């Protein structure tokens, strides 16, 4: 091979090997199923592939069927409403925590991250416990003031659950921007004679707008792709994700499901494009970096208001989860709203009946995290250190699953591996593969970021000391990347434990996960066991996140600042 003189890179065996392996895996488990789903969505139901068969009938249903049309409109409405409400909820809180002198900011930030850690459909479920037909608050209000609260099922419940589950995205991103904005910008405006309101309007808000907008786009995407929340709270109120599920479980119509998934992907892609645009603007602003912390407001009135607001918002967002905890220990419910006797009965039932799903969840999450960890790390290494010029190909391919909502990944994998040359359906492999594909971007991103921070001279110094590639990688590069890899892995592992949207499409009788078991308990109205299993899930998720924090010495919030 010619040297760099002629523009040729010497072929590095490591790069070739890793790129080859990565290419193979991405082709087989990502590009292939996605092409199948795209192709299928243009084929009539149950028709074999032929050019003459191609049709737009599945897409035409968005015009002809009111079910489809409603689902699309509803998906967009609830997602939009949730991101707007999250703004109203999250922005004041971000301002209060960043700019007002109140005690316990670290605690507030950690608590503010919790809703993101807990699987969102558990949040939805907790609102049923509170406001459902037989909910604690519903009963309480009916008994005390004789008023029948409106139903939690449908749009209002979904929007409520989305808002309270996802507002931390706005809160954390806006907080980051507010806390790190250079205080001298505001000070210079003050010196030039601007009053506080003008400064807020002309300096502070414009500076944090990209961050806020990014948070809202993320919430919109998450809401659009969420299956668990509308499945638990929707009832007859279909949105795109539940419609996909309906097509698959009801009719096993993969082609129709594929078409709906593609439409949903279209909206996510647009949002992602928007997000990319925003994050570039955001990067431009934070380049300055603050040397001092922003000044805090110290007035007594504002401090009281700020603290009260934060406690109220966090209370509303988190207390429902405590209700799940309480319900899990409840043995008998009185005629009043609250349980009258507590026991471990639900846990005994769960351990007797749902032992296998617990094991499955742990097994699948572990396998997928390890696989994603190894692959994501190697690919990050090759992308950052070896193949700078073709990096964008890797980046784009690996990021593809971001554009696909969980349920669409499920449909794609099912299209790819339920028939054809490689059949995996019904095995644990199909779940592990889907998990791997969905979560590898997390580790890839986080490992790449870590590697970009490492001075290449570290590795060069090792080479000049006499160390060959393998030693340099294992002794220098890998240990220095490890915090980044672990951060990515801990998010991967804990979010996989709570994964429902992909799982619901791909699970089989032997490979049921905890989340599926909870969902089934909910459908059967077995609130006690559902709460017990939900509590166990939350504890497992929290434990793995806290362990990662302990290992990394970071705060919970920083793990989520990856977008």
């Amino acid at each position: 091979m010619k040297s760099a003189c002629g523009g040729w890179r010497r072929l590095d065996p490591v790069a070739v090997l890793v790129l080859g392996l990565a290419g193979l895996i991405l082709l087989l488990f990502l590009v292939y199923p996605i092409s199948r789903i795209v192709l299928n969505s243009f084929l009539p139901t149950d028709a074999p592939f032929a050019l003459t068969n191609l049709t737009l009938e599945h897409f035409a249903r968005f015009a002809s069927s009111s079910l489809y049309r409603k689902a699309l409109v509803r998906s967009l409405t609830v997602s939009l409403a949730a991101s707007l409400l999250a703004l109203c909820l999250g922005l004041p809180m971000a301002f209060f925590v960043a700019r007002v002198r109140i005690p316990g900011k670290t605690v507030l930030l950690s608590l503010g991250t919790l809703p993101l850690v807990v699987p969102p459909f558990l949040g939805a479920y907790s609102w049923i416990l509170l406001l459902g037909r037989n909910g604690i608050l519903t009963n309480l209000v009916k008994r005390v003031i004789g008023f029948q609260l409106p139903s939690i099922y449908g749009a209002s419940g979904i929007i409520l659950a989305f808002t309270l589950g996802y507002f931390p995205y706005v809160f954390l991103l806006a907080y980051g921007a507010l806390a790190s904005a250079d205080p001298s910008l505001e000070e210079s405006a003050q010196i030039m004679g601007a009053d506080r309101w003008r400064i807020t309007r002309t300096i502070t808000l414009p500076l944090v707008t990209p961050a806020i907008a990014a948070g809202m786009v993320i919430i919109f995407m998450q809401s659009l792709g969420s299956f668990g929340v509308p499945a638990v709270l929707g009832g007859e109120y279909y949105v795109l994700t539940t419609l996909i599920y309906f097509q698959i479980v009801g009719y096993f119509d993969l082609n129709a499901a594929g078409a709906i998934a593609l439409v949903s992907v279209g909206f996510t892609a647009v949002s992602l494009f928007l997000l990319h645009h925003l994050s570039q603007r955001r990067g431009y602003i934070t380049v300055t970096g603050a040397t001092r912390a922003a000044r805090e407001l110290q007035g007594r009135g504002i401090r009281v208001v700020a603290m009260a607001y934060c406690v109220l918002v966090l209370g509303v967002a988190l207390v429902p989860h405590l209700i799940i905890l309480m319900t899990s220990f409840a043995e008998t419910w009185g005629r009043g709203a609250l349980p009258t006797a507590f026991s471990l009965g639900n846990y005994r039932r769960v351990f007797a009946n749902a032992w296998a799903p617990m094991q499955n969840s742990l097994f699948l999450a572990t396998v997928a995290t390890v696989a994603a960890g190894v692959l994501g790390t190697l690919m990050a290494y090759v992308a950052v250190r070896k193949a700078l010029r073709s990096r964008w190909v890797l980046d784009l391919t690996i990021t593809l699953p971001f554009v696909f909502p969980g349920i669409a990944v499920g449909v794609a994998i099912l299209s790819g591996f339920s028939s054809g040359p490689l059949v995996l359906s019904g095995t644990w492999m199909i779940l592990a593969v889907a998990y791997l594909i969905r979560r590898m971007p997390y580790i890839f991103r986080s490992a790449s970021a870590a590697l970009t921070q490492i001075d290449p001279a570290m590795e060069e110094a090792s080479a000049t000391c006499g160390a060959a590639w393998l030693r340099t990688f294992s002794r220098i590069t890998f240990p220095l990347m490890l915090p980044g890899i672990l951060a990515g892995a801990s998010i991967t592992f804990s979010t996989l434990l709570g994964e429902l949207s992909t799982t619901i499409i791909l699970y089989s009788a032997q490979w049921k996960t905890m989340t599926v078991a909870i969902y089934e308990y909910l459908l059967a109205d077995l609130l006690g066991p559902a709460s017990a299993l939900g509590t166990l899930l939350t504890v497992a998720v929290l434990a793995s996140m806290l362990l990662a924090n302990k290992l990394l010495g970071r705060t919970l919030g920083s793990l989520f600042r990856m977008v």
Partner: protein
Amino acid sequence: MAVSLVLERVCKEFGAGDQRVAAVRDVSLQVQEGEIFTLLGPSGCGKTTTLRLIAGLETPSAGKIIFDGRDFTSLPSFRRNLGMVFQSYALYPHMSIFENVAYGLRVRRLSEGEIRRRVHEALDLVGLAGLDARRPAQLSGGQQQRIALARALVYGPRLLLLDEPLSNLDAKLRVYMREEIRKIQQRARITTVYVTHDQEEALSISDRLAVMYGGRVVQAGTPTEVYEAPASVGVADFLGKANFLEAEVVAWHRDRVRVRLMSGAALDVARGDPTWNPVEGEAATLFIRPERVRLGDDRGRAAVRLQGTVTRLTFLGGIVRYALDVGGARPVLADEQRLVPDLGVGTATTLHFDLADLRAYPGTQRPWGETA
């Protein structure tokens, strides 16, 4: 002394196609065994790339690198048995000082006892014994620098490479450390290639040096040779302060050029640029260092005299720098050890200097970074 390291017409190009850039063009060098050889030049001149080629961190596009008779050209870095100190030090933040220094010994699979003995020896050598258990982040910049040096020397490499090792230190420490490096290098008697953009550092630390510009070596020699007899206006200007006077070629014989100054005086001056073949009537530039210009009455000893007026006077501590208008485009600088009595701004005086301190160059040459 035997020649140790040889670079033969080494080229390095980066990028491909239209964006191809030559960082190093046709560089040939010979480094003697046991000497400190410095690559000096402004940023972007190709000195660091040349060092990285010697280290094996880059592969030459053309040419050969030979060390102790062995062809290094395509040998991977880790087989070259060399030590390198990086500008950023590149100490491993996840390892203790002991493990940092021991790294190259572990690569060479020495016994634990031997490793301990040699690490302590190396830490003694750089004067940092007892810091074994610390982490790099707990050390000052100067200490980190010395640990990097210990790490590069501990396994007894045959060649030491230093890439701007002092540029992250403050001025006083820089002077101290360059003497330390020289001392340690002399004790280890190791062939050393040193890269810097600081001319004072280069002059003080090197046995010999090469001045690089635009990817080429423009002059190589001992510090005195290069400082006293620069091969071009660019080198003269880069290595310290320089005065340039406009003149015209009258005649030319061997290494001497007869020129006429604007004042009308004719002088026989040594030719500075050995590649220059002057033509009668051609514009020439004369060069002289400010410390070789004397002011006031010297009782007729000097060969060359000019009339000038003081336009500015700068006190620099060790010296006083006078700027004088002699009728040319640029003022002439003259460094005196102390204030000259009765010589304030606006005063007319005589400048005089020895013929031996003057060098003549083609009038077309300009200092680097100045457009013609």
